[in-house]
């Protein structure tokens, strides 16, 4: 395989700077053979104030290093529809990112509930969604200084409309979630689900890679949200219960180790398999996507 070209994006300014490489733009010359590398598709990178960031492109111009969710450009809006594919954000007062952590958490949860439409939260059914969006919006706001409630797409998530998804089965009453527990991360049994099929027919459950779970309890809000690494596909017979263990990955580098009850969300990390495609580096690559490795980390 040909070598990748490594670039340093230098931002000595005192504000976040966005670097944009247009499609076909010249990226640079490979030092070893002098070949010019051109960018395969338009891409932007966000670099925090007074920082430098290294990114790499293959010899054919494809991005090799993870594209952080902070790199996703978002435009302002006054409301967000959960299943629309827009990259938007509802601006919030800038001082919220420096507020006391507890206050900031509450403020973002409240703002998410009033700004995002189409999330059918029901803790009795085991369904959440707002806490995930609130945590990711707050963290992105803290890292970038652009304070707001972000749409799922602007946070790298998409609304999972699959009829066989866990969220959909819970919402439609096909399955009852007796228990959902997160314990540790990046291990084959870090997610445990106990599900019952209360219908009189077979229920096929298909959870795609990247399916996201959030912490249920308020005292566990400092713990990492969890996303599924591999696809899970099972059929639960009528009236039967099943315990499913799955490989959960930590979605927030700065959070504490998961050890608590989870809620299913309607959201799924986009292109999760791609972001976790390098064997042995799945967790660090995922963090590079969701949380960045920069020194300006958000608070969990």
């Amino acid at each position, binding site marked *: 395989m040909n070598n990748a070209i490594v670039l340093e994006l230098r931002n000595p300014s005192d504000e976040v700077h966005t670097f944009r490489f247009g499609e076909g733009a010249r990226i640079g010359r490979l030092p070893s053979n002098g070949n010019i590398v051109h960018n395969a598709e338009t891409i932007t990178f966000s670099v925090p104030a007074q920082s430098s960031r290294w990114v*790499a492109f293959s010899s054919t111009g494809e991005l090799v290093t993870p594209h952080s969710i902070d790199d996703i450009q978002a435009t302002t809006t006054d409301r967000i529809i959960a299943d629309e594919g827009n990259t938007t954000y509802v601006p919030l007062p800038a001082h919220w990112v420096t507020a006391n952590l507890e206050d900031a958490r509450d403020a973002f949860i409240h703002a998410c509930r009033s700004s995002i439409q189409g999330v059918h939260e029901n803790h009795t059914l085991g369904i959440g969604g707002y806490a995930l969006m609130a945590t990711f919006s707050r963290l992105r706001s803290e890292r970038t200084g652009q304070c707001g409630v972000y749409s799922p797409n602007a946070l790298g998530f998409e609304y999972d409309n699959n009829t066989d998804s866990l969220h959909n089965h819970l919402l439609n009453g096909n399955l009852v979630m007796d228990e959902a527990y997160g314990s540790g991360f990046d291990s084959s049994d870090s997610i445990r689900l106990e599900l019952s099929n209360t219908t009189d027919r077979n229920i096929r459950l298909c959870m795609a890679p990247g399916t996201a779970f959030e912490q249920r309890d308020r005292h566990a809000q400092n713990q990492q949200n969890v996303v599924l690494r591999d696809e899970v596909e099972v059929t639960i017979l009528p009236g039967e219960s099943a315990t499913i263990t799955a490989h959960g990955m930590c979605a927030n580098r700065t959070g504490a180790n998961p050890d608590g009850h989870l809620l299913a969300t309607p959201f799924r990390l986009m292109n999760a398999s791609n972001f976790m495609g390098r064997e042995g580096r799945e967790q660090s690559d995922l963090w590079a996507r969701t949380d960045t490795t920069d020194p300006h980390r958000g608070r969990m």
Partner: protein
Amino acid sequence: MMRSNRLFDDEGNELYSGFGTISREALDATVDGRAYIETPTGFERLSRPEGDTEDEIRRLVDTATRLGGYVPEVNVSVDTTEGEEVSATIHFPPREVVPQKVDLSSVLEIMQSIHKNALRGQNRHGWIDTTVGTFERNVREGIALAEKLYGGRLPVNIIPSAVKGACEETAFIFAGCIPQGSIHRPSVAVISEQHPMEVEERYHQHEHTIWQEPLNQFIRDFVVENLDAATNSGCLQGTWKDIHVFMPMPQPIGGILSGENDALTEFCCYCREVAERTGRDIKVTIHWQDSIEEVEQ
């Protein structure tokens, strides 16, 4: 009478509106002789190209002209049984957009107020109190606002700027901004090459940058570099007639020499040389913090 580029079929249904890309269906109809144009006397069939090669080419060119396009190439292929076949590529240039007339004197007024605003905050010794970053941001946001007001990029050249557009007649030089090639501006550099599986994304924090430092400390270097950039600009040789230099300081009292004033003097002299050499009138106006000076050329 205004020429119509609209095409119709034999029932009067519109095939082509006369603007934008022509559809395959409309082109086929034209070539097959099934297309009509509207004339003062009614619909008139666009004649099907026939006759000898020369006539056909003429008719094709005529058709293209009628439709508002032009013919960059004509292909003639020879078939031994059917004779010559002529086809043409018709290009339709984008409609000419009449640029909005920009009143440059009002743009200048906006620039003056941007500069004044960016320099606000002077301490009791008369020194500018603003930081490099705040000054930079104020100028940048002011220019963006002016562009927004005038509906797009202004017909002026701005120094420092990353924009490599056409040379205009008017130039605005914000001498107190960070020069374009400076290491203090965001930049991209090739570091190395590595195997894709081994590449790690890395961040590191700069220990010290000048953006939060007082502008005062850097004014001299910035002014000298920005005026150097203006001196070396091809636009000065080619087009500039009205140059406005925004200096981030009060007008010096006569006789006081400093690096930035030397640089300004040299720049003005060079403009005079260019004016003499090219025969073009070049007016240089210096916008000091407290006054405006027109330099005699």
